């Protein structure tokens, strides 16, 4: 028996492939989850880093802007120390337009009075600082001989601004201070308004006061650190770090929405001031990023899973087909073998039948040859041993001659049969008149028929077409048929021979009113050594080969012979020749 688990078994194939498939898919999924964690981490890190860079970029921009403007003012202050007061204005204009960020440039003389500036309409000329008790910064710049930057303050025109106080010295002689105002709203517009995404940017100073922001949440002038102190400890920590001038990142949760936010902060160092900028972005941004990666990953897993399933299915299909073709092959081979077995069996049966026929033939031949020997021997021995009368002696001698004739006939018949069977029977064909042939046969059998008082009548159609045949063999055919008819017809019976044309054929019927042939024997009468048992036949018993020889001769001439018979009424042997 074939073991159940084979490559050809569909059920096992399917199971195996499904197991492999599931294994691969779960491996990929596991790897995907592991990868996700890494990706999450990396994305987080990258995002943080990116936000920090962004904050640095902004802080650098602002820092540069402020310092550049400060340097410009310092250069201007240095420059105007040598210039007569009346020629200073063009320099102011020059600096004003080059800086593109300075709200107003003013000059305050050594006694603290604003004498000139640009743009003219914003200059409160003649305004005395001392009179308004606003000379603190003026004096600080003068005494330190160093540019000084103030905290933001409320401008007269509204809004917050910072001022740059740069002292003007000609040698050691104090000439006054160049004052420039930069509006915080300008900084905001210039650097912070480009972020319309979820990100927010704000700038605080070293005291935790909001200077400007990208959204309305961050109100300039509001003390941020006071606001968050106690309510948002994480943001408070971040602000403290910002106020220390450090750079870095940190998380906090919004007090009202509890939204997780990332703040990346960088310091802005501007002379005596230390500001800090922070880029705030919600965690959801990172999550969105990761989510998009996830989506792609899931897509990839789905795709590879699908591919694996497809691949497996095609393997299953392939195996199944292979299996089927194998099965078909096996089936066809099996049927081939069965068929050839069947053929062999049949051939074997046939051979056995032939073998039996052969041995039957041999035993029949020996029997038939021995049979006439017995009377010959008895008669001869009787004649030798006794001295009977003339009549008995004559009877014995006749018996011996008759049996010698019988055996001679037998030997001749057997030679004929063997010639026929080996295909060596030669026909000397010539054009013959069937009527003459029948008459010759009739003459031959005349004596025998007279002995039995059987009346033979012939009815031969005149002008029958001649046929091409062997004369002696054809006479033998009709002699055999007549002798057969005489044998099976009781004394005083009738035998009739009829010859006539029928279409393309010539038919010769030999009819007797003898005992007939039983239906179950009618197929066998043309077989070799077949003899129907009957008492009439005894005095003329033949070799049992006559009809077999007759049939062979007929077939050798391209004709046929058959018999029709009714037991008790008689038989008709119908020979048909082709014209």
């Amino acid at each position, binding site marked *: 028996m074939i073991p159940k688990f084979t490559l050809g078994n569909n059920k096992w194939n399917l199971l195996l492939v499904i197991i492999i498939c599931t294994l691969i898919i779960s491996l990929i999924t596991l790897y995907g989850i592991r990868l996700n964690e890494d990706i999450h981490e990396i994305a987080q890190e990258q995002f943080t880093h990116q936000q920090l860079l962004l904050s640095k970029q902004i802080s650098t921009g602002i820092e540069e802007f402020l310092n550049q403007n400060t340097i410009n003012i310092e250069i201007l202050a240095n420059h105007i120390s040598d210039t007569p007061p009346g020629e200073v204005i063009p320099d102011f204009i020059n600096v004003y337009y080059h800086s593109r960020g300075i709200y107003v440039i003013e000059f305050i003389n050594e006694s603290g009075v604003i004498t000139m500036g640009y743009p003219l309409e914003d200059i409160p000329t003649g305004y005395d600082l001392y009179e308004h008790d606003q000379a603190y910064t003026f004096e600080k710049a003068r005494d330190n001989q160093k540019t000084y930057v103030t905290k933001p303050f409320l401008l007269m025109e509204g809004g917050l601004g910072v001022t740059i106080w740069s002292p003007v010295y000609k040698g050691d002689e104090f000439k006054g201070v160049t004052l420039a105002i930069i509006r915080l709203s300008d900084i905001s517009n210039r650097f912070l308004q480009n972020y319309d995404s979820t990100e927010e940017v704000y700038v605080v100073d070293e005291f935790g006061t909001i200077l400007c922001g990208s959204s309305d949440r961050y109100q300039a002038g509001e003390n941020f650190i006071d606001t968050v102190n106690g309510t948002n400890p994480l943001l408070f920590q971040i602000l403290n770090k910002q106020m220390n001038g450090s750079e870095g990142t940190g998380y906090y949760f919004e007090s009202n929405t509890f939204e997780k936010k990332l703040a990346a902060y960088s310091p802005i160092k501007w002379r005596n001031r230390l500001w800090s900028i922070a880029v705030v972005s919600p965690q959801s941004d990172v999550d969105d990023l990761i989510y998009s990666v996830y989506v792609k990953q899931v897509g990839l897993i789905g795709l590879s899973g699908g591919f694996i399933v497809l691949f497996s299915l095609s393997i299953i299909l392939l195996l199944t087909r292979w299996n089927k073709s194998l099965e078909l092959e096996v089936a066809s081979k099996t049927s081939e073998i069965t068929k050839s077995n069947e053929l062999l069996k049949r051939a074997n049966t046939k051979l056995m039948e032939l073998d039996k026929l052969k041995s039957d033939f041999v035993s029949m031949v020996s*029997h038939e040859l*021995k049979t006439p020997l017995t009377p010959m021997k*008895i008669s001869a021995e009787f004649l030798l041993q*006794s001295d009977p009368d003339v009549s008995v002696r004559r*009877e014995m001698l006749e*018996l011996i001659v*008759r049996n010698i004739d019988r055996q001679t006939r037998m030997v001749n018949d057997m030679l004929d049969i063997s010639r026929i069977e080996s295909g060596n029977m030669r026909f000397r064909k010539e054009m013959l008149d069937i009527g003459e042939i029948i008459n010759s046969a009739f003459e031959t059998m005349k004596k025998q028929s007279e002995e039995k008082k059987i009346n033979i009548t012939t009815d031969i159609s005149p002008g029958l077409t001649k046929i091409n045949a062997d004369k002696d063999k054809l006479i033998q055919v009709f002699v055999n048929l007549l002798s057969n008819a005489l044998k099976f017809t009781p004394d005083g019976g009738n035998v009739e021979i009829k010859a006539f044309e029928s279409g393309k054929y010539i038919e010769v019927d030999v009819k007797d009113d003898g005992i007939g042939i039983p239906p179950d024997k009618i197929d066998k009468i043309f077989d070799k050594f077949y003899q129907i048992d009957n008492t009439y036949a005894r*005095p003329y018993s033949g070799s049992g080969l006559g009809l077999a020889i007759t049939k062979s001769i007929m077939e050798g001439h391209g004709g046929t012979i058959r018999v029709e018979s009714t037991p008790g009424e008689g038989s008709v042997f119908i020979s048909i020749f082709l014209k």
Partner: protein
Amino acid sequence: MNPDDIDNEIVNIIKKDPEMPYSRIAELLLISEDEVKEKLETLSDTRQKILIVDDELDTLIPLKRALEAEDYLVVEASSGMEAIEITRSVHPDLILLDLMMPVMDGFEVCKVLKDDVLTGHIPIIMLTAKGEIDDKIEGIETGADDYVTKPFDLGELKARIKMILRRTNV
């Protein structure tokens, strides 16, 4: 009328009137004169009777002549059925039975005769053209007393017949 009855009738008639002519007896028993003559010859015949059974007349005739020359009364039968019939009416002293016969062969005839109380004692010599051992065994099993293969030696057959008849007569 049964042949045995005819025999008895003939015997009775002759006992009453030994001078009665054959023609008168034939008239009384409704048979021919020849038959009466034959019956009387048979009845008066003291020779031993041998029945030869063979479908081949050519074998039967010379054997009959040879055995008649040896002074046996020979009765013949050319088929199995006839052999059984004749055996029952004639009660031969010996049967020479041919094996190869159509319709009813020698074995069957032998079996029928040997199974019958009236005929079972009659010795049978089987004659056959086949000289096979199987036939010999079957022949003896069915009760045949001897077995001769054709073509046999006439002298030998005669010797065997004599031997068997002497044995049964003792």
